[in-house]
């Protein structure tokens, strides 16, 4: 379970102060898949780095599985948007997935199993000895996902993971994320700027305002759990939900325009 309460982040450089996050409160229950959407430049990345313990918030708290986050918490794995920079080009696919497990001092035998299972799960069987840069963008992001799930996290943070891949690959990867989430019963917080993606993937969608960020709105996605690209996206309920999210995001942008 992930709890974010009254989170605030102000960047200071000299006399200049920029309030990126004003007051954010939301929770993600264990085993839930929640999508965060917001207008571009709404401090999504700042929020994510605070949750991942990579950045210290100015005020407020992040609690993961009951423990306050101060530094990268155990049981959390992160998938970055920039897969090409997040994977280590000097290591094969296998070594990339295995390295975090080595750091956790997991026995060799168990590591081999975890790496193989993770690569099988993302559909990359047979690419173990390739280097990441020999693979397509979509496959590289699969490697990053395999690395995250091999780590056996309780919570998976995904920072606009599919923003840089083409539309067809993206649809495949969305289905992959839902399938993995259902199979592994992991908590997923998925950040995106794509409204359709948020509604298609999430059980809930949390909408953020423009910076300085607060929670604009929150909806439960009452679509059936078995989703597919063709039927779910054609469902009238899907259209209603995405319209609602779209309107809220537009309102968030206007709100920012009015206040500034």
């Amino acid at each position, binding site marked *: 379970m992930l709890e974010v309460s009254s989170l605030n982040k102000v960047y200071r450089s000299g006399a200049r102060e920029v309030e990126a996050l004003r007051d954010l409160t939301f929770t993600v229950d264990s085993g839930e898949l929640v999508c965060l959407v917001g207008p571009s430049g709404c401090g999504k990345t700042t929020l994510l780095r605070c949750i*991942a*313990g990579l950045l210290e918030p100015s005020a407020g708290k992040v609690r993961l599985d009951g423990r306050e986050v101060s530094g990268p918490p155990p049981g959390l794995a992160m998938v*970055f948007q920039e897969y090409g920079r*997040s994977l280590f080009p000097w290591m094969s696919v296998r070594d990339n997935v295995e390295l975090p497990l080595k*750091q956790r001092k997991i026995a060799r035998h168990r590591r081999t199993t975890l790496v193989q299972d993770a690569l099988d799960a993302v559909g990359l069987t047979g690419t173990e000895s390739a*280097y990441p840069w020999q693979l397509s963008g979509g496959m590289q992001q699969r490697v990053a996902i395999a690395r995250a799930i091999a*780590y056996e996290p309780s919570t998976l943070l995904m920072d606009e993971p599919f923003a840089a891949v083409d539309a067809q690959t993206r649809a495949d990867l969305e289905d992959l994320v839902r399938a993995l989430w259902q199979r592994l019963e992991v908590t997923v917080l998925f950040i995106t700027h794509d409204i359709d993606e948020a509604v298609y993937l999430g059980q809930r969608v949390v909408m953020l305002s423009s910076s300085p960020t607060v929670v604009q709105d929150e909806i439960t996605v009452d679509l059936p759990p078995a989703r597919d690209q063709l039927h779910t996206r054609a469902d009238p309920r899907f259209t209603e939900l995405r319209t609602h999210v779209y309107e809220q995001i537009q309102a968030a942008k206007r709100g920012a325009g009015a206040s500034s």
Partner: protein
Amino acid sequence: MRNRTGLLGLAGLAGLLVLVEALPRLGLVNDAYLPPTSRIAAALGDELITAEFWRAIGDTLTGWAIGLVIAVAAGVVVGIVVGSVPVLRAATASTIEFLRPIPSVALIPLAVLLYGTDLGSTLLLVVYAAFWQVLVQVLYGVADVDPIADETARSFRFGAWARVRHVLWPTALPYVFTGVRLAASVALVLAVTAELVIGAPGLGKSIAVAQTSGAVPLMYALIAVTGLLGVGINLAARIFERRSLAWHQSVRGEVPA
């Protein structure tokens, strides 16, 4: 294409040899100062079978290698420490910029004072010259660490040492190789200089001895040998670099994605 460049390079070299042969023979230069290629080659041939020659090469390479190893080790360690601590980087930047341009040869009097004509003198000059080459490259390398790669490592709870070992070091490695290659050439220059000027044993000293005893062809032959050593060192460094950096984009070439 590669072969053609190679052939052209060899043709150029052959041209130089012919020119050196022709100039004194045609009387355009005094052959007491520039003997023709054939006589230099003959002197070299005679020298190759002497034990002193190989001892001199051994001495030069010993000074070069020990000095280079010390400089590289120190440059890498200092570079990583200074480069990864922003306060240290800021505090040392101006000092480094001040010390780096001091020519190593300006330290010859100091070296003589400290070590006389021992190996120590050569080492001091070699290490001083080579150290900065390595240090500056390592600093560039450390600054080149991708923040996303570093955040990835931190998010997976890598410790400080693991981040140096698995993120910083591989990132800096191409820079380290460049530094080592530059340092290797400079170290050879300084090793020969030290021998020549201070009289520490080695090829430089042999050149000085050949000159004072009027063995001009031999002097040229020894000079050519130092040149060949330099070429060999550079070549070896490049081959080693290409093998170790097969993953790097400067080596791996374009891959269809």
